[in-house]
């Protein structure tokens, strides 16, 4: 095994100038593998990042003979090179000893290339196959999605089997309630964001959406299901614009007495028993500018003098709650334990960054929803003509507001984020510190005289007369990265409404529409994170089962591990395989300088244990001094951001248990 100094003196065979991303693991792995081989070498490469970025004609980053033919056949192609080499050597046409190396990504190795890999391994061609495994995934909706249910708007992660969700009745184009009969965790997959003018949703490329198919004038239009991959900008998806009139919310709040609460005097207020437009406008102002300190029994509003909201709030307060309030130049204070506790019980969240819109608000009557939006606008809104803009530091508040606006007959733009420096004016106030603010713009839908020219409008907008649904053109579809995904199964209509858009439930993914979507109980795609509900394909073990002389796993972050394994592999006369966990800074994503570190943490957490199997005998090549919790690895990558939220605690624990189990199994195989 050469030292680092000796390695540094070797001639580079994979040169700079390639166009891989900064911090790309694949380039590092290719370079290390090539440096480790101190012999004449011929390389075969499967189609993929490494190939595309390193050989853009007329340039090549390879200072060795190199061949690429297709995606799924690197092993077969190199087996042909090996056969040629053997034949020519027998004939005395070449005298050198040549090392043959095939590089494949996880797709070209685990999935489409598995047959070719298996064939070459079984035939025992003398070559080293290096899988630069950057974990690509497929298939569903991002766990960011909001689902419209009978009980209001819920995150997809909150949906339970048996719950009533809203669906699109494909016969009568009506809004119907259907029972959700299953929730499926589909693991981490690349998701795409589909945007229309007023809606956006994140889903995997094989998730089906309901598309309006225009069959030409005079012919009946129809609806068809298309997967995201088949949808093009300009296609029309079905969106929800309104839900049932709804009912006022009822509150059962028990007032406290001086016995319960040890203060001398309770500022006695009236607590309403149900929601009303006035109360909702008041709460709108609260969400924008209010705070609650329930321990002190204080409710406050930051509404300076000369703002419209200040007077409205004082009026509303007197009308609804009564009781005393105190004002100074900027703030309004109400010292009332009951009021504080009452507002607390409504689930609006606390603190500017964590405010939200509770799910019950989504089922209120239209008028109450509009009053709430009014109240919000009086607090942190701008109005220019018909166009409104609402500013907030809470991303959840903004995305839920967006969903609320969408079903309250507003046109809604995307959420935009901007950073502002201290003292810039924002919503009539100066910022007290540097801050990141998001805003969402919206406006009332114009009134179309659909009575007069219904036919014409109907042609333009097929669902114009529909009370609940509308069609919207798709503006863009963009890859946004890997995210945890979930999907629902819904009885009857087999669809549901996610982020305001009608989407198909999970059933179809098992049909011929999605060839790669064997996504439920098995996880056939190339992934390595153990412990998902669907377990990854253990290709290293599959290769061990081929009885080849050498199989190993490695990472770029431990150069001596990778280099020594490559050296060992090429010393065997036969087919050898090294599966290298190769961080992908765009896909995972993380900052480019963390590539090596992330790969090391994968080994330290035992998510990617490092071992080798020589002639069937397992040997652990790296035993972490202290086995870190899997969370340590997940938190380094943005694709796992959702795993860190409290609602996913259970999922995280499941993963940890599975990693632990596999680690134990591996230790046993290695003789502990």
């Amino acid at each position, binding site marked *: 095994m050469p030292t680092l100094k000796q390695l540094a003196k070797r001639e580079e065979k994979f040169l700079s100038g390639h166009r891989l991303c900064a911090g790309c693991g694949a380039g590092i792995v290719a370079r290390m593998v090539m440096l480790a081989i101190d012999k*004449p070498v*011929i390389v*075969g490469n499967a189609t993929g990042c490494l*190939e*595309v970025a390193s*050989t*853009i*004609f*007329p*340039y*090549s980053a*390879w*200072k*060795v*003979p*190199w*061949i*690429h*033919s*297709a995606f*799924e*056949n690197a092993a*077969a*192609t*190199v*087996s*042909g*090179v*090996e*056969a*040629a*080499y*053997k*034949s*020519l050597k*027998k*004939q005395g*046409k*070449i005298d*050198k000893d*040549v090392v043959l190396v095939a590089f494949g990504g996880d797709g070209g190795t685990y999935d489409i290339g598995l*047959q*070719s890999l*298996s*064939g*070459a391994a*079984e*035939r025992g061609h003398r070559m080293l196959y290096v899988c630069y495994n950057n974990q690509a995934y497929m298939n569903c909706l991002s766990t960011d999605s909001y689902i419209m249910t009978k009980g209001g708007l819920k995150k997809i992660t909150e949906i339970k089997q048996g719950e009533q969700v809203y669906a699109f009745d494909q016969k009568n184009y009506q809004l119907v309630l259907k029972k959700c009969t299953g929730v499926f965790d589909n693991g981490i997959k690349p998701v795409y964001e589909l945007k229309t003018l007023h809606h956006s949703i994140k889903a995997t490329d094989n998730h089906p959406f309901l598309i309006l198919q225009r069959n030409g004038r005079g012919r009946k239009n129809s609806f068809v299901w298309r997967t995201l991959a088949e949808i093009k900008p300009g296609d029309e998806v079905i969106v929800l614009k309104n839900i049932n009139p709804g009912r006022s919310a009822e509150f059962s709040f028990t007032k406290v007495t001086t016995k319960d609460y040890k203060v001398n005097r309770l500022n006695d207020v009236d607590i309403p028993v149900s929601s009303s437009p006035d109360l909702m406008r008041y709460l709108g102002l609260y969400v924008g500018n209010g705070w609650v300190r329930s321990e002190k029994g204080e409710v406050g509003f930051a509404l300076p003098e000369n703002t419209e909201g200040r007077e409205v709030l004082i009026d509303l307060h007197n009308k609804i709650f009564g009781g005393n309030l105190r004002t100074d130049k900027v703030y309004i204070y109400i010292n009332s334990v009951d009021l504080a506790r009452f507002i607390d019980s409504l689930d609006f969240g606390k603190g500017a960054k964590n405010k939200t819109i509770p799910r019950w608000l989504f089922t209120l009557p239209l008028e109450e929803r509009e009053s709430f939006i009014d109240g919000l606008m009086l607090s942190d809104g701008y109005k220019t003509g018909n166009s409104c803009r609402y500013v907030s530091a809470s991303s959840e508040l903004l995305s839920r507001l967006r969903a609320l606006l969408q079903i309250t007959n507003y046109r809604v733009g995307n959420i935009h984020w901007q950073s502002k420096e201290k003292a810039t004016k924002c919503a009539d106030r100066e910022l007290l510190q540097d801050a990141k603010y998001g805003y969402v713009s919206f406006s009332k839908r114009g009134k179309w005289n659909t009575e007069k020219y219904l036919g014409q409008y109907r042609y333009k907008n097929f669902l114009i007369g529909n009370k609940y649904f509308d069609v919207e053109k798709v503006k863009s579809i963009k890859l946004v990265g890997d995210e945890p995904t979930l999907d629902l199964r819904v009885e009857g209509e087999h669809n549901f409404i996610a982020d305001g858009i009608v989407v198909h439930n999970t059933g179809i993914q098992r049909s011929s529409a999605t060839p790669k979507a064997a996504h439920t109980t098995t996880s056939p795609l190339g992934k390595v994170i153990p412990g998902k509900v669907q377990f990854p394909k253990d290709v290293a073990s599959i290769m061990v089962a081929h009885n080849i002389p050498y199989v190993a796993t490695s990472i770029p972050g431990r150069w001596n591990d990778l280099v020594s394994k490559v050296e060992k592999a090429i010393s065997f006369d036969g087919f050898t395989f090294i599966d290298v966990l190769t961080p992908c800074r765009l896909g995972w994503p993380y900052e480019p300088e963390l590539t090596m570190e992330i790969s090391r943490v994968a080994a330290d957490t035992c998510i990617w244990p490092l071992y080798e199997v020589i002639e069937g005998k397992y040997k652990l090549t790296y035993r972490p001094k202290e086995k870190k919790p899997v969370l340590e690895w997940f938190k380094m990558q943005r694709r796992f951001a959702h795993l860190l939220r409290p609602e996913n605690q259970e999922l995280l624990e499941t993963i940890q248990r599975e990693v632990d189990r596999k680690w134990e199994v591996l230790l046993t195989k290695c003789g502990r």
Partner: protein
Amino acid sequence: MKVAKTGNEAFAEAMRQINPDVVAAYPITPATEIVQLFSQFVADGLVKTEFVAVESEHSAMSACIGASAAGARAMTGTSSQGLALMWEMLYIAGGLRLPIVMAVVNRTLSSPINIHCDHSDTFGARDSGWIQIYSENVQETYDNLIQAVRIAEHPDVKLPVMVTTDGFILSHCLETLDILSDEEVQGFIGESPERPNLIKSLQENKPITIGALDLQDYYFEHKRQSAEGMFNAIKVIPEISKEFAERFGREYSFFEEYKLEDADAAVVVMGSTAGTAKEVVDKLREEGRKVGLLKLRVYRPFPAEMLGKALSGVRSIGVMDRADGMSAVSGPLYPEICGALYDVNGKKPVIQDYIYGLGGRDVPMEDIRFVFEELLRTAETGKKEYTLKYIGVRE
């Protein structure tokens, strides 16, 4: 030397005599025998070949590509579904300009599944950048494969070649043929001419990259160069045929003209049906009717200009297509024959297409006679009666 061999045996024998460096193949009916016989040659040490018993046709072509790119003379054989599974790799072999030679036994494509002959498998691969040579009988099957090596490796061509024979009709039919001695074959094909390859580049320490990403700025030029290789083959194929004729006495061209010179009506036909059709021509000639035949041997490169000249004197032409176009103008051959004859010497012959023999449907002499009767009638009237007719089918 006269021997009796089936088409498959003739292919295998020719491969043994060519003695390629690498053969990677996977068995498929009706080409299985080629692989079986050849692996026996390997087992018996009769060839120097590295035989790669791959796990699929896709890998067979992939391994041939790897081997050929590494500088080896690589061969394979397949049929029908196997060829279809290779599809992706056919274009890559063509695009990388690798002189791979493939023995193809023509069999129809599923579905419905059927193991018998028609030309739909290789017709489909017509634009893949492969030279295609069709055989009428076992003798041609043998001779074509030997010539294919020279054509593929010619420095002006450098393209893969597939030689076809009709499934079962020829592949399993015992015929007498004249085979050459091993020395004669080796003397004819010679050493593979030098071309850039992986192992040579390694030996000379001047590494090359094969199969780079070709974007908008180069792809078109490289495709154009491949087409140029095809155009060059139009010159090269007759040179090689001539040399073959000089050495061994059997002459081949792009096509064979049979009693065509003064014919009023003629059929254009490929593969084994040409043999049957010649019989019909002879019978009709005995009856004093002026009929002839053109047997197309080389389908790619398509010898349009030569065909135009050869057929320009014929008043009525029937194109025999052993593959369907599924609602295209006709079968695949007809439009190309029309193209070749369009506006040649200001003449406008009647041209009609006959789709026949799909899935190995027998082609009796009566069917061909029926075609000639129709052609002679249209030759008289000068009026085309239809573009496409299916013959020998219950409808």
